[in-house]
Each structure stands twice: as structure tokens, then as C-alpha cells.
């Protein structure tokens, strides 16, 4: 513990204010002291305060111990106490590189949009693409379907794996997906087949995006969607090779932000 305190003079924090979740990571000399995640709720500013507070508490630190704070994510502009803002693409890249330096392609399945990027041997982003202005290709659809099927979001992955016979899912719209799912289930379709179909459809969109920036064998799936083992399986099936899912895939941008905070001078 004392050791930690000692190193605390060099502490940095990364905060990722996502559309659905806010995450914070506190880092000291390349060691993760603590991390925390909470739902963003309606008020980003409030979420930022809360998530950092909780992460500090876990690390037994106070705001004064933090040398530098970098904010990222869609709500980054709402973090008044951040020293700088960095794009989520750059942060994710650094975060993944920190844990898995061999990774070259990153697929981030976030709540509202998906992002694909490539990093070079130094962990720098060399190319990236974002899914468009339609939430159809993001993790949101998973949430929607989980609600329709009345299962917890953590359960949809395992359930999907049971499917022998994935259906073809037609609707791309994250909102109308609900309606289609409801009527397909009403027609008597098995939940797992529906899920597997949705996973395939989403995976194929992700794969196309990834191939556009150049998909390599060393590939990581991150973001909330990466916690979904059904989606992972579908992506791997389409890509034809394995993908790494880092521990706590949702925290990658926050981690990277903390790393960037540490790099950028005193």
C-alpha cells in the first residue's frame, strides 16, 4: 500500500464518457491502480464526477494525487476537470497496445457506433473508420434484443451459442429490430436462433468495416459488444481466424487515455 502511495505522485487518470457507460482508469508507472465503470445516465458531467470519484476511492487517492487527466469518448467535452481531450480512436489504440502489443486491428463495438482502427508496431493508429450515423451497426441492437427476449444482456452471448440454425435477420434499424424480433418470436422462432442471426448480421457489418481498413490476423474485439461471446464467435467465423478479447474490453479507451496522460510531459 505504501508503495502505491509512493508512486502516486506520478498518477494519471483516463476517463471515457461513452453513450451508455462511463469508465475511469487510474494508472501509475504503467500499473493499473484502479478502474471503475458506471452507466452514463442522462448527465455526462455528473457521470464523469462519479466515475472518477469511485475510481479514486478504489485506489485510495484523492484528486490532488492525479498529475494529469485525459478525457475521451462521445461525452468527453463534459468533463470540466480534464486537462486534455483525446479522440477515442487514439485512446483505444494505446489501451489495447498496452495489454496486447501484437494486435494490429481493433474492432470497437460501442453503444452507438462501431469503430475500426489499425495500429502499427509502435501502438500508433495508422488508419480508422467509423460506422455511420445510423445506430444499426452498433451494440445498441444487442441491448434492444435482450430487452425483447427478456434476458439479461450477459446471457445473450451464451444463449446464441446454442443455436444450430441461425435465421436471417432483415432489419438493420436498431429501433425496428425490436418489432421484427417480437414478431419473429411470435411466429415461434427460437430465441437462440434469432440471436445467432442478429450476431451474424452485426458481425458481417463489422467485418466489412474492418476489412476496409485492412483486417489482420492479430485482431482485438473491444467495447461493450466484445463481452458478447456470441458476437465474438460470429466475427471469428466470418473473419476465419481468432480474435483477442482483452480483459475488461470496455475499459480500453479509458486505459489508453490514462496512458496518454502519462506520456504527455509533466
Amino acid at each position, binding site marked *: 500500500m505504501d508503495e502505491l502511495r509512493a508512486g502516486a505522485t506520478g498518477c494519471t487518470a483516463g476517463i471515457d464518457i461513452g*453513450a451508455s457507460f462511463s469508465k475511469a482508469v487510474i494508472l501509475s508507472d504503467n500499473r493499473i491502480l484502479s478502474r471503475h465503470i458506471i452507466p452514463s445516465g*442522462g*448527465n*455526462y*458531467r*455528473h457521470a464523469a464526477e462519479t466515475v472518477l470519484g469511485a475510481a479514486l476511492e478504489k485506489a485510495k487517492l484523492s484528486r490532488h494525487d492525479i498529475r494529469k487527466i485525459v478525457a475521451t469518448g462521445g*461525452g468527453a467535452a*463534459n468533463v470540466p476537470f480534464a486537462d486534455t481531450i483525446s479522440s477515442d480512436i487514439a485512446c483505444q489504440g494505446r489501451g489495447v497496445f498496452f495489454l496486447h502489443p501484437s494486435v494490429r486491428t481493433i474492432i470497437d463495438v460501442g453503444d*452507438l457506433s462501431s469503430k475500426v482502427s489499425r495500429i502499427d508496431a509502435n501502438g500508433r493508429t495508422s488508419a480508422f473508420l467509423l460506422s455511420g*450515423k*445510423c*445506430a444499426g451497426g452498433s451494440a*445498441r441492437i444487442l441491448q434492444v434484443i435482450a430487452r425483447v427476449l*427478456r434476458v439479461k444482456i450477459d446471457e445473450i452471448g451464451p444463449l446464441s451459442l446454442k443455436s444450430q440454425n441461425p435465421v436471417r435477420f432483415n432489419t*438493420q*434499424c*436498431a*429501433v*425496428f429490430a425490436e*418489432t421484427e424480433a*417480437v*414478431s419473429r*418470436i*411470435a411466429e*415461434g422462432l427460437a430465441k437462440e436462433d434469432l440471436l445467432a442471426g442478429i450476431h451474424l448480421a452485426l458481425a458481417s457489418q463489422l467485418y466489412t468495416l474492418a476489412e476496409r481498413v485492412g483486417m489482420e490476423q492479430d485482431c482485438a474485439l473491444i467495447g461493450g459488444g466484445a463481452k458478447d461471446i456470441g458476437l465474438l464467435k460470429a466475427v471469428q467465423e466470418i473473419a476465419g481466424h481468432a480474435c483477442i478479447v482483452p480483459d475488461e474490453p470496455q475499459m480500453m479507451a479509458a486505459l489508453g487515455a490514462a496512458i496518454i496522460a502519462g506520456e504527455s510531459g509533466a
Partner: protein
Amino acid sequence: MTKVAIIEEETIRCSVIGHTGPEQRKLAGRVVKEALDKAGLSMEDISYLVATGYGRINVPFADKQITEISCHARGVNALFPEARTVIDIGGQDVKGIKIDGQGKPVDFVMNDKCAAGTGRFLEVIAETLGLQIEDLSRTAAESANPARISSLCTVFAAQEVASRLSEGVPLGDLVAGIHQSVAERIIRTVSRLSITREVVITGGGAKNGNLVKMLADKLGYGALVPPEPLLSGAIGAAMLARDRFQKAGPGQMLKRPRDFGEVTFFNA
């Protein structure tokens, strides 16, 4: 929503509106029964039954399924013979229908791929803001200064609205901005037809006075709204049922037992 209208000759004997859940078949049966009870009729008294709408195939006891396009056209014509364009704002899609003096559709367009610009968009926003769908119009009317909503996508817009609310943008301005955005999308969809007067706005969206007003502003003239806009499709279906029955002549229609076929899928 599931709606039932029973007509006798020219008059509407009774109508009922119920919520459409996932169990459409079960519901359709229930709402029809309710309407029959209300009218003091039994199923045998119904000479012909037409089902319409997104879930029309899930009405096993109907004599015929007819698309909502023909039904809305017919229904609106019965209410407003001078109508030439129908804008139907439903939860599942938005339609523009051009009709002739007989209530036959001559051309139509629809948006059913993207929830933005449909009634569903408003539902999602209402849910996000913790409002009832019925209150949206009133809330929007409070605003003199609608906020510009930059996202088109329903999901993005909901997010945008939530975060701007937390930034202190007045609720009314946001809701008014949302109405503006829906109205623009609707006009964009429907203007693929050359819109001619009179224009009638139907479907659940027409219950939203603020939306109707914004649409009229964009059209540059007033639009007509039926007294119960949710019912135009059902009324049209009933009219078409009567038309068919009359055309066939009494006794010609096959009388088969109507199977209410109650089915439940969620036993959990």
C-alpha cells in the same frame, strides 16, 4: 395499436382501440370481441371482416387481408371525400397516399426502413424524457424557440436530447425541435409524391396537434384531421368489407366459422 370498427350500412356502429402487444393474434381476437360486446352483436352478425395493417396476416378469422394503403385511402375518402393526399403517420412506418375521388389509391410512397420520422421516433423520445406520448404536443407548444436536433437517427437523437437536457436546454425547446425534425422527415418522404390538396393526416401521429401544425406550416396550407385519426384504417377496412360483401351479393359469401385462434407465445 389494434383498432376495430364495425359498420352497418353507412354508420359506424362501434369502435375499439387496444394496445398491440407481441401477441397480436390473441389481441386481435380480444379487441374484436370487445367491439362486438359493445355493439351487442355476435360474430355471426358480421357479414364480412377485413384485416389490415402490419399484423394483418395474424388475424386468422378475417375473410380477407387488405393492405393499409387501400384501407386508409378508403377510410379517409369516407370521412373527407375532397381528400386527394393522405399522410399516414403510424408507429411502424410513414405513408403518403394519393387518392382519387372514389377513395382508390393512385400512387403511394412509404418509409419503413428507418424509425426516424415515424411515430416510433416520437415514442422513443417520449420514453427517454419520461413523458407520455399524449403530452408531447403540449410540451412542444410551450416553446418559442425550438432546439435544432442534429441527429437523424432515433437512437442518436434520443441520446442527444438526453444530454442537452442535462446541459440545461429547456424541455419544451427540445421536444419542439424533435417535432420539427420528424415533420421534416415526413415531408421529405411524402414529397416524393406531388402533394395535392386536400391533405388529410391520419394515423396515431395525427393525434399530435403540434406535429400536425408543423406539417401544415411546411405544406403552406391547412391539413384535415379525422376526429379519431387512429381509426381511419379500420374504418376503411370495414368499408371495403362492405363493398366486397355488396358486390358479391348476399348469400354469395362463404360463411365459414371464424376461428379466434388464441395463441400465446410467452409462457415464461
